[in-house]
């Protein structure tokens, strides 16, 4: 809000103010590594020559060297000394907006030279600020508002050189140079699901020196949406000589109809790409899905291998995926599938129909593909459903995760604890693996099925996806090896199970013994004519009921004798009627006083018993 107000004031500033304002700041060019001392920012500052498309930063340290408190609105680089229009060849980052700087206070920010075209470029560093002097105020509904100032403090000159690397592709009209982070994605032609569309890209080194080829990739944007694009950089050298170019290919390989999007990453530059998969033949209309242990996957793409996961070699064990081929049309036309084939070591087909297989509208056929490796390693294969191609892969591990154990912080378990669980391996894991950590709770109290407070704190649930890195001796959840959980308020046993692929499930049980009632808080309140006693706590046996209250006067002498009360029925109703919250309770007892003053009662002691024993708690009346 303050910044908006400052900008509003700028609209009514007289032009002469640019030259009349006293500068409260001293600016230095700052070396964040501390190797070089700060040097004053010259009124005309020469920036490093920078290629178009690149950026050169200059860190500024700005000190309030005046004797007044200054409200620093922002810094910007404009197109002229008397303008606040942003210069597109520059940016300012790291400004802590709306900063109030006392005398001697300083801030750091960065001036970025980001030329958009070659040649000499000039920008003007302007500061927006208010100075608190003569009793003025920065904001508010009363008082005189301090005048807002804009001051040009330095002229920034830089030379923009030709871009070092340009990315282009060929069209019938000639080469087209692509702009990074464009809001208009590069469109691949509409492509049949049984066809592909490659585009050859050219990375050109327009400079006079050789340059290292930046990384080229198609990053995964959404792991649930396999990429419909393939990248081939086999012809790209590690270094592109001066004036030379390197070619690589991105191929659009749709397996589903509709728009597919992606990104081409060249070094730090991102180029959005997209293409549409279309149906041009009846076989293209078939919808393929497959089912694995985690559910049904409906969008397999030819460009992204279908994973069979991890299987032990030579054990005869297989990973089997069930495929479904659906003719989704509602017309009377059937689709005829001439064949289904698979290739690749370790992959085999099962449950095939007779060919040619006719799939009527709305019908489907199913078959299986099994991955049965005979040796350790990574395997790939291919599956062809008619003319629809898919790639397959699977991993065969020499061994699974072994030597598991569990430890908890804090010694033997008891009720009402928050502890950390650690999943340990006896030796560094030979493989990376994803697994699950599950906890179950078995109450030892008759007619009690659960306690909702027994949970993993990170999710309030009882199952977590854990991961194990190759070489690690602890599994982690969210990169943490200590996994926090609660023990609840019910006697019983917590069993943790750890399951990794191709490994026997490891379980370990921790017993929570029955205990005497635990009173966690006691409050005593004298509200004439009543005495109110409130206790909170838990009974992990669900057998509490016998209470007694002993009152003392303000000198500590007992008043009469302890007063017993059997609240068993009330506790049984609390614990066993629609209760999943364990043995917690909050009890408030009211004692009307008619024969004297409540102020004469100083304290109370509450004793509570269950099937294990009893506990006592005291409180003074407030």
């Amino acid at each position, binding site marked *: *809000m303050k910044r908006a107000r400052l900008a509003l004031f700028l609209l009514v500033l007289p032009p002469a103010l640019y030259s009349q304002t006293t500068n409260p700041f001293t600016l230095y060019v700052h070396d964040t590594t501390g190797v070089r001392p700060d040097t004053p920012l010259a009124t005309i500052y020469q920036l490093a020559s920078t290629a178009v498309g690149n950026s050169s930063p200059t860190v500024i340290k700005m000190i309030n060297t005046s004797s007044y408190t200054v409200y620093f609105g922002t810094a910007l680089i404009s197109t002229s000394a008397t303008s606040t229009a942003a210069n597109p060849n520059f940016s300012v980052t790291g400004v802590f907006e709306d900063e109030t700087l006392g005398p001697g206070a300083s801030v750091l920010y960065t001036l970025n030279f980001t030329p958009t075209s070659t040649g000499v470029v000039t920008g003007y560093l302007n500061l927006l600020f208010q100075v608190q002097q003569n009793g003025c105020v920065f904001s508010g509904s009363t008082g005189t508002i301090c005048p807002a100032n804009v001051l040009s403090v330095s002229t920034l000159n830089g030379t923009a050189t030709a871009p070092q690397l340009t990315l282009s592709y060929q069209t019938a009209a000639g080469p087209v140079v692509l702009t990074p982070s464009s809001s208009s994605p590069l469109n691949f032609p509409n492509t049949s699901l049984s066809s592909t569309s490659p585009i050859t890209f050219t990375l050109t080194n327009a400079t006079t020196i050789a340059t290292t080829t930046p990384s080229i990739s198609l990053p995964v944007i959404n792991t649930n949406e396999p990429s419909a694009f393939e990248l081939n950089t086999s012809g790209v050298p590690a270094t592109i000589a001066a004036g030379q170019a390197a070619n690589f290919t991105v191929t659009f390989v749709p397996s589903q109809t509709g728009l597919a999007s992606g990104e081409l990453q060249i070094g730090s530059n991102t180029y959005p790409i997209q293409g549409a998969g279309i149906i041009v033949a009846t076989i293209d209309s078939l919808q393929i899905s497959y089912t694995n242990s985690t559910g049904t996957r409906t969008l397999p793409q030819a460009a992204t291998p279908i994973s069979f996961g991890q299987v032990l070699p030579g054990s005869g064990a297989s990973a089997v995926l069930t495929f479904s081929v659906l003719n989704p049309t509602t017309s009377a036309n059937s689709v005829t599938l001439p064949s289904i084939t698979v290739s690749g070591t370790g992959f085999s087909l099962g449950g095939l129909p007779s060919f040619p297989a006719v799939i009527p509208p709305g019908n489907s056929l199913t078959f299986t593909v099994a991955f049965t490796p005979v040796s350790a390693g990574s395997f790939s294969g291919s599956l062809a459903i008619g003319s629809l191609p898919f790639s397959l892969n699977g991993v065969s591990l020499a061994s699974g995760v072994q030597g598991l154990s569990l430890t908890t912080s804090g010694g033997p378990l008891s009720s*009402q604890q928050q502890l950390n669980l650690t999943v340990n391996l006896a030796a560094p894991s030979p493989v990376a693996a994803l697994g699950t950590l599950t906890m179950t709770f078995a109450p030892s109290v008759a007619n009690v099925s659960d306690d909702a407070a027994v949970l993993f704190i990170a999710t309030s649930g009882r199952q977590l996806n854990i991961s194990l890195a190759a070489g690690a001796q602890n599994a982690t959840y969210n990169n943490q090896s200590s996994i926090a959980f609660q023990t609840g308020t019910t006697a019983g046993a917590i069993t943790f199970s750890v399951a990794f692929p191709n490994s026997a499930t490891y379980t370990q049980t921790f017993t929570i013994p029955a205990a005497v009632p635990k009173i966690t808080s006691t409050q005593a309140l004298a509200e004439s004519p009543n005495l109110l006693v409130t206790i909170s706590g838990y009974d992990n046996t669900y057998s509490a009921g016998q209470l007694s209250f002993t009152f003392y006067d303000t000198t500590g002498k007992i008043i009469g004798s302890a007063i017993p*009360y059997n609240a068993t029925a009330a506790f049984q109703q609390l614990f066993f009627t629609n209760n999943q919250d364990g043995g917690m309770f909050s009890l408030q007892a009211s*004692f009307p006083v008619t024969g*004297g003053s409540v102020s004469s009662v100083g304290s109370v002691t509450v004793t509570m018993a269950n099937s294990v024993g009893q506990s006592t708690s005291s409180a003074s009346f407030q």
Partner: protein
Amino acid sequence: MKRSAFFRWALLAASALLRGQLSIPQLGVARYADGSVHLIRGVAANLIVDSRAIATSADGVSFADSAGLLSARGVIRLIRTDGSVLVEYQSTEPLPVLNIDPFAQSAAAWLPSKHLLLRWNGRQFVETPIDDSSFSGRVTFVSVVSSKAAQFYVARADSSVARIAVSLPSGNVISVDTAPGARGRAFMQQGWILWQDGASLAGERPNGFRQTVALSQQPLPPADLAMERMSDHWLHVSSRSTGTDWAVYLSATQLNVFLLPTPVAEVVR
């Protein structure tokens, strides 16, 4: 003997009340990073988050044992802990500073964009324009200490904390001093002044007793911790960078910190 007979009579009355006064303990109300607001049941180290949300898009809450303030989309509501609304006020304030203390007429909200202190007088919300021209920083905490005065904590640019008393009848500043020791976005509850100290929560009593509780093994960014009242004695502390939530019990002598479970169980795919 006379007294004993009196108390035995009194117990008979108490026994009739006891059955209706036995319940699952309610610890307070917490707002999570996704804006959902949930009732928390339990005792220390045994916390259960009610799966039903009192609100789903709140941008600030402050709760006492019996009632609280909730701000969502420019509307401030005084509500009970079951979510039922007692009264509401159209503030249009995106980020008000809310507070409610154990006594009934302490509900207050600072509306920085309007320079207004909003407070509940037991019948309606009352607006008091405040001269905040000398605050020189961001208000991080506000409390109505009496019918005539309110107290603000302001985070100054040098990270020190200004403690500013304001007259409620006039809206003028009565006094300004520096809260010793406190840094950054200070908060107050049950006599403790609380602030983030690196990766720890620091608290100081009026008698100078200070306690620092480590919350994270990893460094936390400055101004990473947010604090909101859950109830009279419980404070919700959350880390913006790690997404971790804590419930802090404030007794007269100690800060006790527990992890606060998240409201939604993970769906394992």
